[in-house]
């Protein structure tokens, strides 16, 4: 078993997702079965194969390096769950 209680807690923590005990149990089962299934990739010989991260065959075009001042802070803050004097507001961080 690749994923145990400790591992799932660690991944959940890295993902910033709180899991209750029941969920942890379910995900341990799901993730192990998915990882067992993808294991079959080890049958494939990938020696000297370059990893493919971008399928786009076109060369990235260059553009003028000019700055734009759109002054859109009000727009950006429009959907914020909490804001204060032109800033996003979050719970207090410093103890």
């Amino acid at each position, binding site marked *: 078993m690749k994923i145990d209680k400790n591992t799932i807690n660690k*991944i959940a923590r890295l*993902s910033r997702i709180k899991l209750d005990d029941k969920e942890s149990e379910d995900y341990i089962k799901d*993730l192990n079965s998915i990882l067992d299934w993808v294991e079959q990739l080890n049958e494939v010989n990938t020696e000297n194969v370059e990893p*493919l991260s971008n399928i786009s065959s076109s060369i990235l075009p260059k553009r003028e390096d000019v700055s734009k001042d759109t002054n859109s802070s009000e727009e950006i803050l*429009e959907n914020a*769950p909490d804001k204060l004097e032109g800033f996003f507001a979050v719970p207090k961080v410093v103890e």
Partner: protein
Amino acid sequence: MSKSSLKQTLQDLESKKISIRELNQDYLKRIKEKENLNVFIHFSEDNILKQIDNLEKDNSTKKLKGIPIAIKDLFCTKSMPTTAASKILQNFNPTYESFVTQKLLDEGSIFIGKTNLDEFAMGSATNTSFFGNTINPLSKENEPLAPGGSSGGSAAAVAADLCLGATGTDTGGSIRQPASFCGVVGIKPTYGLCSRWGIAAFASSLDQAGIFSHNVEDASILLQSIAGFDQRDSTSAKVDIPNYFENLDDDLNGKTVGIPKEYSIDGTPMEISQIWEDAIKVLEKKGVEVKNISLPHTKYALPTYYIIAPAEASSNLARYDGVKYGFRSDEIDSLDAMYENTRAQGFGREVKRRILIGTYVLSAGYYDAYYLKAQKVRKLIADDFNKAFKECDFIVTPTAPSAAFPLNEKQSDPIKMYLNDVFTVPASLAGLPGISIPFGKDKNNLPLGIQILGKHFDEQQVFNVALSLERSYE
């Protein structure tokens, strides 16, 4: 009532046989009659009437003026909320317009609503939506069927004749599979043909916008409208967009079709093998040479996809943290508690599953074994296609391994659900254009789909083959 095509409607509007208002009121009426299908996450009659008012005052000529189009609720729209079918974006009102929807607005189309999908496009049945299932319009009474997914709402909107076309996105089959389930045409173009700007990201190296329509001609008109270069998407391609519709040509004489032997999978229903054979016979009659080809790494496409897509998703979805937009939990004793509770309460089960698996395969000590390995196998899969296309002009396969399945069919095993994408995922990994067209029915009279794959940016060839098969079937 027989469904009116986009092409015919454009002619009727041009000759003033029908007005924009009359046309859209007809669709409005049908949308209200079909409310039970749960096609739309957002629908507002007032908003539609306002769009009609504005277009009536506008004297300019526009290619899609007055045409009712449904938009998958993954595209940011200024005039309507955008949720990605997730609780975490429940109250999100974009302050900007996606590239694709802006193009459709510039051409004068009317947005009739935002369609339902699997949460963040993660699913194959439109059953992971926070806003409930969409019902396939082809369902019989008391036997609701799934519309496929993730773009199930858009496919259903076209199938139920609630619009003349719809946008979708396809990461591993999310346009082609629901098109097959709902008996409509669905095209995923080449990766990079349509800008991803303003589309809520799932797996950025795979996501691509596309079109649902009643027929191939309509798809060719609409795809041209949404394609094009955009400097705000670094993978957007700078290629000339042909006039697909004007260039349509169903004469396939002298072309070569590739039939990949690896797509004959044990357990595929007889009827699906049968329509595949029928399609090949039709092509042969039209003077197409049939060539058996091999795509040897096909069986590894699904496990490759289910490493790469969740890995990219776990990174893309990190932005939903309850700070900048969207839902924030009430349990916010500390900053970490705010993040963890917001994401625990805001995301659904399938999305969390994929974030967790993606985080795992990217985490220290596992990156090489999973993510890097998958990227290497992805290269081999793409190379398979490159080799195959030296021998053939296009490839024909079934779209999905089944017809639409019952909505309530319990899919507790995630791997079984992932198998829905077995025929669509390889081309996604290779970034190739693919279309699904209705071609034949199963024993329950449900539509089945044929998939046509082409070379990069050879959408014209894909459309031509699709048109030829469509005409032979009608």
